[in-house]
């Protein structure tokens, strides 16, 4: 997967419907259900059927950087727009991007490990234009960091979501909390989608079950 070098300002690329995105290659990803055996709850294992998990199976990913900021645009078809948690039994749509925090080869289907943490960029429809920077060291351990260097914008129309994440390539003041990126290098990357209408939350979601290599153009 290529992260294309572009000469476009953050203000433009952060817009999910900006014309500039037409010039950025899109990578279609097949998504899978998270394995039931990895759910950190016997209740979840017993009460769900793996076949029903991960309603969204197709994701389009675009990645670009302009030398200082990196951008991801995630688009997927979704007929039901689930935004606010207006009742106890309602769940919002969401998406996330996963990268090893300090390199290495952490298990993607276990949210990293004690020694090899992962960094997730997380957005949920009810957060509106707020993203969360998350660190995990194994199943069920995700924690939001206090500061979030990630900006997000989303739109839903024609039965599809388009979500753009933006972040400075390097965030030196948060080295221990968020992955450091650099043009010319590559990074392992994965993605997840939560379909609210299917009661998806926590580890119940669809995900790209293997790491992809994302190469950042010089």
């Amino acid at each position, binding site marked *: 997967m290529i992260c294309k070098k572009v000469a476009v300002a953050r203000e433009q690329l952060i817009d999910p419907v900006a014309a500039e995105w037409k010039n950025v290659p899109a990578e279609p990803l097949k998504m899978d259900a998270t394995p039931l055996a990895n759910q950190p709850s016997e209740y979840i294992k017993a009460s769900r059927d793996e076949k029903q998990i991960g309603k969204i199976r197709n994701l389009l990913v675009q990645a670009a950087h302009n030398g200082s900021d990196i951008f991801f645009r995630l688009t997927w078809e979704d007929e039901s727009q689930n935004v606010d948690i207006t009742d106890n039994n309602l769940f919002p749509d969401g998406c996330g991007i996963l990268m090893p925090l300090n390199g290495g080869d952490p298990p993607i289907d276990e949210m990293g490990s004690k020694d090899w943490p992962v960094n997730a960029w997380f957005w949920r429809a009810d957060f509106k234009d707020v993203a969360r920077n998350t660190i995990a060291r194994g199943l069920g351990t995700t924690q939001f960091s206090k500061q979030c260097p990630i900006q997000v914008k989303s739109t839903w129309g024609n039965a599809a979501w388009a979500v753009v994440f933006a972040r400075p390539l390097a965030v030196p003041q948060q080295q221990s909390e968020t992955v450091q990126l650099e043009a010319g290098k590559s990074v392992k990357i994965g993605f997840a989608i939560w379909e609210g209408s299917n009661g998806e939350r*926590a580890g119940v979601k669809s995900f790209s079950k293997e790491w992809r290599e994302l190469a950042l153009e010089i």
Partner: protein
Amino acid sequence: MAEVSEQQKQQRAKELASELKSQKALLKKSKRQLAMVFDLNKCLGCQTCTIACKTLWTRDEGMEYMWWATVNTQPGKGTPRDWEKMGGGFRDEEPQAGKLPTRRDFGEAWDFNYDEVFYGGKGNSVHLQPSGDPDWGPNWDEDQGGGQYPNSFYFYLPRICNHCTNPACLEACPRNAIYKREEDGIVVISEERCKGYRFCTEACPYKKIYFNHVRQLSQKCIFCYPRIEKGVATACARQCPGRLRFVGYLDDENGPIHKLVKQWKVALPLHAEHGTQPNVYYVPPISPPRFDADGNIDESKPRIPTDYLKYLFGPDVEQVLATLKSEMAKTKAGGKSEILDTLIVYEWKSLFGPFTKDPATLEPRKV
């Protein structure tokens, strides 16, 4: 990346399952267990307990619809509506799928026209009423009960979280946010770890966990642990005018809880078939007699169908009722009954085991 074989996957799944099991075992561990006994023969349905809890714990924003302590008329739909039909708990140790009750099922917090009636000068012309046209609430089917006149019947069932020994909520949480306090077995949710996923509410067969829509996390009865830590009984128990809410440690052989539950075996858990080992126990209600077709009293059949009580409290309820009746016969004949003396509660403080301190005598908390 090397292809992972099916065998390796299964091996890893086993490792994860056993790690999870040992984590959960730690979270479930407690040295002692606090418990309550509610004597249903004495409950007035006055809701003082409900309000005591509300005013103490659930007044913040997002908690409007929460009632950690509830009292419902039985038979009835309960709170949340039809909670007994929502699944959860365990069968043969396997967790069972459960449903999430809606806010309407719990009963929305209604808005009343207080301003208009009390301060708006309309005290003589407008009724105090909720806005909108509510068709359900936490005590909606009060006093409807069951049976046909002249043999209609009902009783009140107070409920709180049961602080189960094998909590379905704790087992369900994928973030290990729920644990039993080691010193007293109170089940609490760490607000730091909870992310509001609500698997706990799905799994709890008693539907005693609420979702806070403002803070986006789950909240439940805390057995008044800040009071317990100071030797003060729970607010619901101290405020109850019916003297029926016993508080204490299950293993305290001198306390009323141990005697009622373990020694005399006259208090039973509610819907124990869900396998969570609840720590709230009930002295079942003794029925008045029925009237026969001619209007004569028929002592042979209880007004409250025994099958209904068995449905709530299990098969042992028959033995409990037999014990209570024979104790009553004993006192009628001039004898003494330690069981009845305990249940009568001559001394108010005898309800509270070691938790007899008056909260008004405590030092105010330093803020």
